[in-house]
């Protein structure tokens, strides 16, 4: 009963309490390393990235072309049917101009993460990636973009085989 309670539990500490040893702490640094299997669908996705192409899966029942590709359609709950190459062009659905790292340390140059709807996939099918070769203030939702690929010899079968996506005009 909030009106009836005068003393609320919970004791706040300040950073200096830790730094000056007013409270005792125990530290632990875990060493946890993982090797993830890419799986059936994403392994093919990565192989095609290494070859400089984007690939999706199609589901005949809902008539969708799905990217990232998946071996089962989560809506129809049945196997997807075939591999379909899609374009390395697309449209910016949303973006941010990020100035900080995960630990809130400021970056020298902002990152431009974006959700990019890929041409050739079904409407609304986007992937997470980065924008580049563009001033942050010039990016807008609806902007057409094209993938800038890593040199073939340096591709590793990773989403970073696309360096970033740059502004692009349809010819």
């Amino acid at each position, binding site marked *: *009963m*909030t009106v009836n*309670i005068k003393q*609320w539990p919970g004791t*706040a500490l300040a950073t200096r309490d830790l730094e000056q040893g007013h409270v005792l702490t125990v530290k632990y640094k875990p060493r946890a390393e993982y090797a993830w299997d890419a799986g059936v669908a994403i392994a093919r996705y990565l192989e095609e990235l290494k070859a400089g192409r984007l690939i999706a899966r199609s589901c005949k029942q809902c008539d969708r072309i799905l990217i990232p590709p998946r071996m089962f359609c*989560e809506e129809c709950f049945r196997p997807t049917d075939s591999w379909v190459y899609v374009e390395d062009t697309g449209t910016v659905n949303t*973006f941010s*101009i*990020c100035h900080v790292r995960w630990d809130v340390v400021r970056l020298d140059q902002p990152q431009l993460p974006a959700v990019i709807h890929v041409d050739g996939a079904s409407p609304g099918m986007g992937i*997470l990636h980065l924008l580049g070769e563009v001033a942050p203030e010039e990016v807008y939702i609806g902007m057409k973009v094209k993938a800038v690929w890593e040199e073939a010899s340096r591709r590793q079968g990773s989403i970073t085989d696309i360096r970033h996506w740059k502004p692009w005009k349809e010819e």
Partner: protein
Amino acid sequence: MAKVAVVGAGMTRFVRRAQETGRELSWQAAKMALDAAGLRLKDVDAVVIGSAPDAFDGVHMKGEYLADGSGGWCKPTLRCYVGGGTGVFAPIQAWYHIASGRFDTVLVVCEEKMSSCHPHPQGAFLTIFDHTTERALGPNLLWIFALEMNRYMTVHGITKREIAEVAVKNKRNALDHPCAQLGANLTVDDVLASEELAWPVNRLDVSPASDGAAAVVMCSEHVAKRTSPQPVWLEGVGWHLDTAYWTNRDLYYPQYLEYAARMAYDMAGIKEPRKEIHIVEPYDPFDYKELHHLEGLLLCKRGEAARLTVDGVTQRDGDLPVCPSGGLLGVGNPIAAAGLMKVCELFWQLRGEAGKRQVPGMPRRGLAQAWGDLMQVGTVVIMGI
């Protein structure tokens, strides 16, 4: 369907770093809730614990870790977890324990101690991104909020200035909350002038990392009527999960939350939520999320929530009070405990015990909501007297 009531609530102060361990915080909140209900641990048939990622505490099987402070030893005890949605999901778990008829009295305890995780608790969120297709890009948690906020603003033509009104309102409301971490009298210009983290998100658009715990006691109808002078009934519950392919759905609208809300409204027999809900405690880890959630909860039209805020409709003395507690932006955001804090707030508000925070006009029905996982789970409870 069997009726289920909340008969007691408790919480600790929410702070950036608590001296107490998670187990001690859990005990403090649990004991306060039991005392408020006039019950003892031996009256409790089962315990539900809610806590978000184990990685914050660096303790695996956090349910077992927190169980003694939560009163869970030598009792049927479970820990539930749906990310940020946990704090409102935990009382839903207790609801079906009791609605099944098998249990009469269930203690619900939610705890989070984010300060243990160094150098920054945001590190615990890095593993929510797909390890193969996304994590290689170096994402951080702010990205998904910033991407969603931009999409939401752009689709509806809403400005940062309008959205900042939410942060100003909630931090001001929190000045009246005795447990609040970040109550403050700020202006919209203060929010807009705060450090830009990931456009369109500035520092004051975001709730803090916090330590804290909250608890409620829930009972079957016959126990509630025997033991409680003023039970607050759980009239509706709803929850819903959307796709983890978050780049495959339009972030401007939380469709999953609409489904969760419809489930809860249906159970509560609510036909016109805007007229029948008197207080709302939507999840507000970022200021735009309060607006996003009001729309998903069908409490206003899509794109209209910013207007309601600017017009003062969502102030504590407005027509639709939203986050009279001060919300996550003001009271603080110890993830699971923050969601359950909203349930505690409804309990106090509906019983007329909220003191300086009391919403005028004797509100009779409120809604609390939380949200989380990979931005795709919605959990809703409707409470009434």
